């Protein structure tokens, strides 16, 4: 069931899941706003739809296949030129395991 209200802890938890660094005022504001919006959206959770199957997509597509043939893709140098940092034709990132997070 839907919760009665969204707490600050909910917002901090979801922000972590979404990898979003939020400021204090943003956390404050989102706590109220998400509660309002989810309160409105909760009208769908109140409906009895046990007999109704879900729709994920408007087209009845299952699998779409194409021939397994090599074909040109986007240009590597053009792609790498857009990256914030590269090294040896690869994307360069900070260390994976830091001290801030386990």
């Amino acid at each position, binding site marked *: 069931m839907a919760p009665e209200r969204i707490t600050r802890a909910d917002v901090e938890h979801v922000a972590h899941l979404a990898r*979003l*660094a939020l400021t204090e005022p943003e956390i404050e504001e989102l706590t109220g706003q998400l509660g309002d919006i989810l309160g409105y*959206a909760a009208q*769908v959770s109140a409906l009895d739809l046990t007999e109704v199957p879900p729709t994920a*997509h408007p087209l009845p597509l299952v699998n779409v296949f194409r021939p397994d043939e090599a074909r040109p893709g986007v240009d590597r140098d053009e792609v790498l030129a*857009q990256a914030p940092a590269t090294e040896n034709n690869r994307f360069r990132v900070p260390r994976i395991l830091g001290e801030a997070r386990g």
Partner: protein
Amino acid sequence: MSAATRNGETAAEIAAAVRSGTRSAREVTDAYLGRIGAGEEAVHAFNLVTADAARARADEIDAMIADGHDPGPLAGVPIALKDNLCTRGVATTCSSRILAGWEPPYTATVVERVVAAGAVPLGKTNLDEFAMGSSTENSAFGPTRNPRDPSRVPGGSSGGSAAAVAAEFAPLALGSDTGGSIRQPAAFCGVVGVKPTYGTVSRYGLIAFASSLDQVGPFANTVTDAALLLDAIAGPDPLDSTSIRAEWNPVISAVDEGIEGLRVGVVTELLDGIDADVAARLSEAVDVLRAGGAKVGDASVPAAIHGLAAYYLIAPAEASSNLARYDGVRYGLRVDGVDVADMNAKTRGAGFGAEVKRRIMLGTYALSAGYYDAYYGQAQRVRTLVIRDFDAAYRDFDVLLTPTTPTTAFEFGDKTGDPLSMYLSDVCTIPTNLAGHPAISVPFGTGANGMPVGVQVLAPALGERAMFRAARALELGAP
């Protein structure tokens, strides 16, 4: 009076003149660039005007004509592109700081197609960041103003494209529509806007917002011009696995077929909460259709009233997944952190605006453990109900009629403090996206404040030909 006489020359007229050699593409392009130069500062329709590339492309079109080649059905017609359509080597921002300065390594199929049809791209138009919004107030680069009244919003998210066509900066524009982002700004700016059947227009190179709902479509000053542009972009694309594989049946030949015997249903559930002036125009639209020979009755789509709530769970859920790619690794902004996770979070915190953060949070919450069934799962079931109710209505009717929006264009700041009130402006346009159906907004008179009113024609999947017939009748009979 037809829209053409209000807004000067049509795309069809330009293409005919360029193809016959009576006007040069360069002359046309220079005229539109001149209008942009004179009016853009007041409107801010564009994030980027590519004047040099436009002139070079126009010269190529003229060279083709001189060599006896036909440049295509959009020969020499200037076009504005929403800035969420990828253009190789040309900045594509989605009006977001997180993509500022990014130059895509490939071009969207729809852009390739309009260029192959002879069109001349003039630049990239402003939008609500990542197409999330209904006013362009969420653009990181400042809002677009409504050319009909600069104190009012142009609508959104494709507000720049709608304003560009309304201000005659371009006779045609491309936008994208996830919950009404073409039709709502078309209504607010007094132009024609089309959301095609899901899968008819390629999404390859359209930067994803909510992939099961997003669809690219045309803006134009006339219904015929919108048909011309839709025919140029529709049809299967091997680069989009959700593209419908059947060949496109062109709509241009249907536009002037008339509406004798066409069965039109007015959706009663979507009349609640509509402003009186908008409701009055809708009632006049019914009279116009009846006078043209259509059979008009009341239609019922009961689940439409839950469409908005379902949409504001489904679209953010899909967005939270699609926007996970903006992580500071491969393109766009990076804000350094002590490790990768910290860099990801700081980059996203600094790069996304308030509405995008709100949707990502909403979607992540709706998909998170413990809430998935109550929110996202239920919303997907409502989506089934909406489709079933439309299917039932289309057993009795060929097309359906609603207002495009509950109100005319509102003023800046009216709804920015209350996200839910902004979302409610999409109530009439959203059910179509949930069903994957086509819809068109046609200008039909003005409201009490003198701002344009849009009337919306809906059709079942691939029912565009009947939809355009009704739209043309409304255009001809508009006050």
